[in-house]
């Protein structure tokens, strides 16, 4: 069919455009890509929990020495159904109930299911003290 279309009358394209086989293949692939994207949007829509943002900070690995200081990696993730902005992560190092060092870090955006990593630097060894990591605040965009 396509052979006839291309060999038959190559010069009569002014009236009506005949799609070649190659053009149909492109159209097919394009349609699949578009349907895939639409499918993903709808999947994401359905899968999205209608709950507020649920933010959680976790410590990643052991404390490392970085020159004079100690490095503690953290990972903050959002398991809720809402995107939040300016997420403030706070770290407090306590010894005997008293805060000896505190640090804070801001994350620009955290969408549902997203996680971001960062690190805190301490002068004191976090392994010989009590380390608390928490999310202090965020904004709703």
């Amino acid at each position, binding site marked *: 069919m*396509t*052979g006839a279309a*291309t*060999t038959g009358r190559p010069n009569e*394209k*002014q*009236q*009506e*455009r005949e*799609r*070649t*086989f*190659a*053009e149909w*293949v*492109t*159209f097919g*692939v*394009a*349609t699949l*890509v*578009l349907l895939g*994207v*639409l499918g*993903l*949007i*709808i*999947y*994401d*829509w359905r899968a*999205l929990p209608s709950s507020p943002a649920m933010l959680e900070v976790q410590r990643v690995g052991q404390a490392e020495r970085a020159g004079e200081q100690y490095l503690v990696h953290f990972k903050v993730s959002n398991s809720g159904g809402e*995107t939040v*902005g300016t997420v403030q992560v706070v770290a407090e190092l306590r010894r005997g109930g008293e805060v000896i060092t505190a640090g804070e870090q801001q994350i*620009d*955006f955290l*969408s*549902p*299911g*997203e*996680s*971001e990593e960062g690190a805190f630097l301490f002068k004191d060894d976090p392994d010989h003290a009590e380390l608390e990591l928490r999310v202090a605040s965020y904004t709703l*965009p």
Partner: protein
Amino acid sequence: MHKGTAQVSNQWQRELKDVIRGASGGFLFGIPLLYTMEVWWIGSTASPLRMLIALVATFVTLVLLNRTAGFRRAQGIQLVDAAMDAVEALAIGIICTTVVLILLREVRWESGIGEALGKIIFESIPFSLGVAVANQILSARSDDSQGAGTQAPVGQQPDIGKLNATLADIGATVIGAIFIAFNIAPTDEIPMLAAAVSPPWLLAISLTSLLISYAIVFVAEFADQQSRKQQRGIFQQPLSETIASYLVSLVMALGMLWFFQQLSASDPWHMWLSYTILLGLPATVGGAAGRLAV
């Protein structure tokens, strides 16, 4: 029978050129917004409903554009054709922006489906619009493709002709690179992207820059391409022209970064390298367009 197979391969070649022409138009139009962090943010916070609305609105615009401009060299476009081309333009936009966003490390595994989808969809809007006006971009000289004949007398003095043509090509690349990359050089996106890109990704970005530049100038068959083939000078060979113009674009990117004080002598060399290669991508796209337009 022979004629039949020749025509079948011809048909595939023409289709490939149509699609690459569309993608090239998309890069010219869409690359400045691919380097805009506000669009990433808008994408990452967009709700699924907003994404659907964005896609539908883009589709309608694309259908309207395809009726007049489009990216295919075809006559007599009906509404159905325009709609089918709009689907293709959208798909080209989605695929190309996905590739670039992955290269720039803006879309990655950790960033959940919703965020990745939002970024891709909002970035693919300007890109698809570029696809749909691909025929219109740089087509100013479409009617005098025989104009290349005016260069014939130059050929009688081969050495001077070669030098002039080479200088003209370098000049065009410089102008094109400035045209696109000047908007991006002073912004915060380059340092931001550089922070997330490791050496293997830089390598991938520079290879992609070369590929896009080659596609725009030698495959896409924009208007001036016929005369391009008759162009003299050391930029004559497609491969050497692509590499040489990439180097010119990198030098321009470096110059612009220095001009806007994004780089200073005290910065480490790998910072110079990553900034330059990141800005090199838009600069190369501009440089390629410049060589076709000037």
